[in-house]
Structures are given as C-alpha cells and as structure tokens.
C-alpha cells in the first residue's frame, strides 16, 4: 500500500486549483446552489483520494474525476430527495450571486441572457453542453461518462446549441418587435 506525504497534498492542491472551476460547473448541474456543489466536490475528493491509493496517490485523471463527481452528485440528489417530504414543495430563493457562470462587470446584455438561457435548457442537453464547453471533455469522454453513444452526445450538444440560438433569436425579435 502506498503511503502519503505532504508532496501528494501539494500535487492535489495544484490539481484542484487547475480544475475546480470546471468540476464545480458540472457539480452545480446536480445541485441547487454553489455551496451544495462545493460540498459534492469535497465528497468527490475523498472518494478520489481513496481510488488513487493504488496509483501512488497521484491526482486523478479528469474523466475519472467527472465520473466520481457524477456519482456523488446523483447520490446527493437522491439523499436530499428522501430527506424532504414528498408532499412538501420547496421554493428556493437565492440571491443572483449564486450563478455558476461568473458575471463580470462588463457583461453585455447578450451574456446575461445567455447565462440565464443555459440554465433553462433541459437537463440532458445542459449536462452535455456544460461538459463540452466548460469542462473540456471530448464527445468520446462525455459518452463514456453518461453511458451514451458518441453520436448521442454530439446530437445533444448540437441540439442544445440550436435551442439556445432559437431562444436568443426569439428574445431579440420580441424586444425589437
């Protein structure tokens, strides 16, 4: 069995610095807030650390990280669902600061609308879009993660873009009309 050292910790911290944003972007799809997404990420870190014991505690490959994150996120959602009463609706109010796509001071109106519309995509389309655009996975990696074919991954991605494009056009036409 490998033993750990502070050097392993440093390597993991560097890995986390490099990859936290894209991991969080994906985790956020399964959570109601960025805080929850950060909780899911922490749980994933623990699991990943134990997985990597057989690999000399090297920081994990990105596809493995996403796979674990997905599993933890699904599990988190299931546990949360069981905790809340079935006949109880929860209306969640959050400040706009909870956006997982970082608003900037120079945001154009298009960027603001785009962020909002991405959030409103159906889950299956949004998941592929997030993995492709912000998590940097290939279609093959996405397909493997989601247990779908490469073609399905590519189709969902294209369809997501088309949906966004259609929505943006509709909004622009409405505002000019």
């Amino acid at each position: 069995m490998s033993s750990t050292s502070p050097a392993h910790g440093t390597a993991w911290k560097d890995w986390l610095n490099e990859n936290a944003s894209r991991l969080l972007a994906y985790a956020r799809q399964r959570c109601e807030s960025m805080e929850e997404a950060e909780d899911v990420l922490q749980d994933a870190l623990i699991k990943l650390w134990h997985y990597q014991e057989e690999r000399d505690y090297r920081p994990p490959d990105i596809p493995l990280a996403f796979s674990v994150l997905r599993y933890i996120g699904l599990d988190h959602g299931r546990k949360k669902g069981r905790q809340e009463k079935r006949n109880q609706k929860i209306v969640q109010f959050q400040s706009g600061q909870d956006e997982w796509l970082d608003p900037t001071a120079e945001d154009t109106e298009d960027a603001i609308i785009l962020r909002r519309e991405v959030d409103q995509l159906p889950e299956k389309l949004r998941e592929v879009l997030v993995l492709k655009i912000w998590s940097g996975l290939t279609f093959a990696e996405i397909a493997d993660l989601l247990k779908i074919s490469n073609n399905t991954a590519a189709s969902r991605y294209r369809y997501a873009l088309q949906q966004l494009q259609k929505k943006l056009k509709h909004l622009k036409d409405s505002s000019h009309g």
Partner: protein
Amino acid sequence: MDKSLQKLEADLENLIPRGLSDQGKHQCEQLIDRLAEQDKVDSAEIVPLSSTSLSWKSSAAAAAVILGVGLGSGWYLGNYVNDSNATPVVVEPEIQSGIFGGDLITTVPAQDGKGKTIVINGTTENGDDEINVKSRTGENITLRFSEAQ
C-alpha cells in the same frame, strides 16, 4: 456546424465558470492536508457549506407563496423539488413583493442584516433561512432563502 452556431459556441466559451469560494477553497485544502496525513476522513465529518442554521417558524395562518417577477440581479426563484421543469424567476433584491394565488408576500432584509422579515398578507414572520407555510389549498410549502457565496 454552421457559422452562427460556431459563434454561439464562442460566446458560451467566453462565459467563465465560477471557481471555489474562499471558504470552499480553504475547506478543500484542509481536507487534502488531512488526507495527505493519512487521516481517515469520512465525508460525514465535513460540515457542509450548504447547511444553514434553520430557525423555523411555522406559520399557523399561512398562505400560498411565490414571489413576483423582475429581471436583473436579486433573488432567484429556484425550481420546485418536484417540478424539474419550473422556470427560475429572478426578483429584485431589496423589497420584494409578489402575489401568488391571491396572497401577497413581501420580504424585506432584516435591520440587523441577519435573515429576512417576511410578511404574508400583513402577518409578519421572521424568517432566517427557511420558513414553512401552508397554501390556501393546504399544501405544505417551504420558503428557503439563501445568500450564495
């Protein structure tokens, strides 16, 4: 893929995902330090960032709740737990009022900066982060307010 979709792709790539909050980063780094020290860490030990100190005040005379709408930054109405197709709605952050099912809901940030004061049809309920209310039709509904990091 046609040029318009390629442009959309580029526009999306310009939107930057949020990184870890300061607290989240600190907690992750501490966690890594503990793991590197061969400390057995159970995820149950980690204090969730999303946990809030719930101070419930169940409302005996409750009302149906949903806030009104407005665009821009501010409170964000999330999805119902059981309705994944619900559209999130953003409302103004300061004084917020809305009507749902004929009931007027107003929220005002509390004077001391902690929690909010929620007024439902004229009845004041002090909400910290969650408040249970009952709709006119007898549904149990929880209003959950959170300030994201």
